[in-house]
């Protein structure tokens, strides 16, 4: 490994991002259904159904608590899915990267473009859930729009680790490990469904090492209009995960493709 790979956000990355946008546009129907349908069902089912028994949580209605948590967790899962299943498809069976690598683009450009695209999909999902949440009346005011750049950042945070997994993957089944051992547990302990302060103290400390709780600490106040705290810390954790994972993803994908 020589040097540190920093994201190369040039025209090459943009060309890769644009390619993915154009493919997405062709499949826009099912994509939008996924963006709107799933979170709407979750919010209606859990928010209203479970919320009826729970009442308030963390000083807000359970629906508001859950909606703001799901914006963050959905940014995570959307980006992770794209960074694994779709990136793997382009890297291995479809050999799209092989074709791209015969042009002036390099692995750095391709992965920068892919991470931007993963984050863009997170953004689509964030917009969709925000609209659903708005219709359900849990969005406080206009400052909730600040959640969109945060969601984009969350997308970057989780795209890198997903692509690192892809660099090791022999097939799609490999991703089950990451989902079952990382994504799902993180979703359950990071404050999406209940506040972190109900966890045992040791666990609370450990959870702070994960990126998702920091994502939620930014998203929830922005959506529900409660005060933000420790903004630089949360941003730094999210950005740190994105940069470090980009570096390793570039290293690993180069090692896999340039043999």
């Amino acid at each position: 490994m020589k040097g540190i790979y920093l994201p190369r956000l040039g025209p090459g990355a943009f060309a890769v991002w644009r390619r993915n946008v154009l493919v997405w546009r062709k499949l826009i129907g099912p994509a939008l259904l996924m963006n709107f349908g799933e979170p709407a069902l979750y919010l209606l089912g859990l928010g209203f159904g479970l919320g009826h028994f729970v009442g308030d949580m963390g000083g807000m209605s359970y629906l508001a608590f859950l909606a703001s948590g799901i914006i963050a967790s959905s940014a995570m899962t959307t980006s992770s899915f794209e960074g694994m299943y779709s990136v793997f498809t382009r890297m291995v069976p479809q050999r799209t990267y092989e074709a791209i690598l015969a042009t002036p683009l390099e692995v750095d450009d391709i992965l920068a473009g892919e991470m931007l695209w993963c984050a863009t999909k997170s953004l689509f999902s964030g917009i969709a859930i925000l609209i659903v949440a708005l219709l359900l009346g849990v969005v406080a005011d206009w400052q909730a729009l600040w959640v969109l750049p945060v969601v984009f950042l969350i997308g970057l945070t989780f795209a890198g680790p997903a692509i690192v997994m892809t660099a090791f993957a022999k097939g799609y089944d490999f991703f089950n490990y990451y989902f079952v051992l990382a994504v799902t547990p993180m979703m359950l302990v990071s404050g999406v469904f209940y506040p972190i302060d109900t966890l045992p103290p040791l666990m609370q400390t450990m959870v702070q090492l994960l990126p998702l709780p920091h994502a939620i600490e930014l998203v929830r106040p922005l959506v529900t209009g409660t005060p933000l705290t420790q903004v630089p810390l949360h941003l730094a954790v999210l950005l740190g995960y994105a940069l470090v994972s980009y570096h390793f993803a570039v290293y690993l994908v180069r090692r896999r493709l340039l043999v």
Partner: protein
Amino acid sequence: MTEPVNDAVVIARGLKKNFGDYQAVAGVDFDIPRGRCFGFLGPNGAGKTTTLRMLLGLTPSSAGELSVFGLPVPEQARAVRARVGSVPQADNLDPDFTVRENLEIYASYFGIGRKLARERIGRLLEFAALTDRADAKTDTLSGGMQRRLTIARSLINDPELVVLDEPTTGLDPQVRHLIWGRLAELRSQGTTLILTTHYMEEAERLCDELVVMDHGRILDQGAPAALVRRHVEPEVIEIRAVPNDELERLGQASGCRVERLGTSLYCYTHDPAPLLGKLREQSGLTFLHRPADLEDVFLKLTGRDLRKGA
């Protein structure tokens, strides 16, 4: 073999590639002159594809020096690839897009503006005889059409050098001839072509110069006709029968160098008359008299045994 060629597009010296213990390219030297068609001829596993990948900076070499357009590779591979077109062994067209979109997207990777790209795409569709399929998805195209599109795609940046890895493998004769015609056209416009093949006819028709490779080494280099002159007698009589000692003695008695391969006996000679006379007296033998060609050189240099994994 290593004296420098004036205006060489590619210069390789002592180029090596190891994969673990396996030596894919075992130290090769070559100069590829500008505006010519240069071939790498060799059996599967000879190291041809690895050599091409090193040219593009896609495989790091284990030792040796390599330059393309005078630029060191892989250090300047990005600048090199901007001026090179590449046709990989297996088509890797983008299945999510139509024929035209494939070319548009590929142009965007080279940073070619929309207007210039549109102009070139029109010409390339014509060149590849795909104008009427421009809006078809690529997975609805026949193998030959996909290959033509891949070749058209490799020309989107108006390259000075096009690298083709087995451009016509697996295609039917009509398509093969069409592609050969297009490649000859490109060369006549001054584009340098580098191709790998194990089709002798392709090498003989297209290549001004070629190297014969096997086990990662260059066995010889030259124009196809010169290689034939250098390595084999000018005429061949091929006897189509299970080779036996008696037939072999017959050939040798007539002053031929005799080789056995599969269900044929090859008799190489400067003077075919004695053996032809004897063969005509024997009934029931099928035989073919022809001038020696690249295939004879290839078989002589690379050996006649069926190799492991072939």
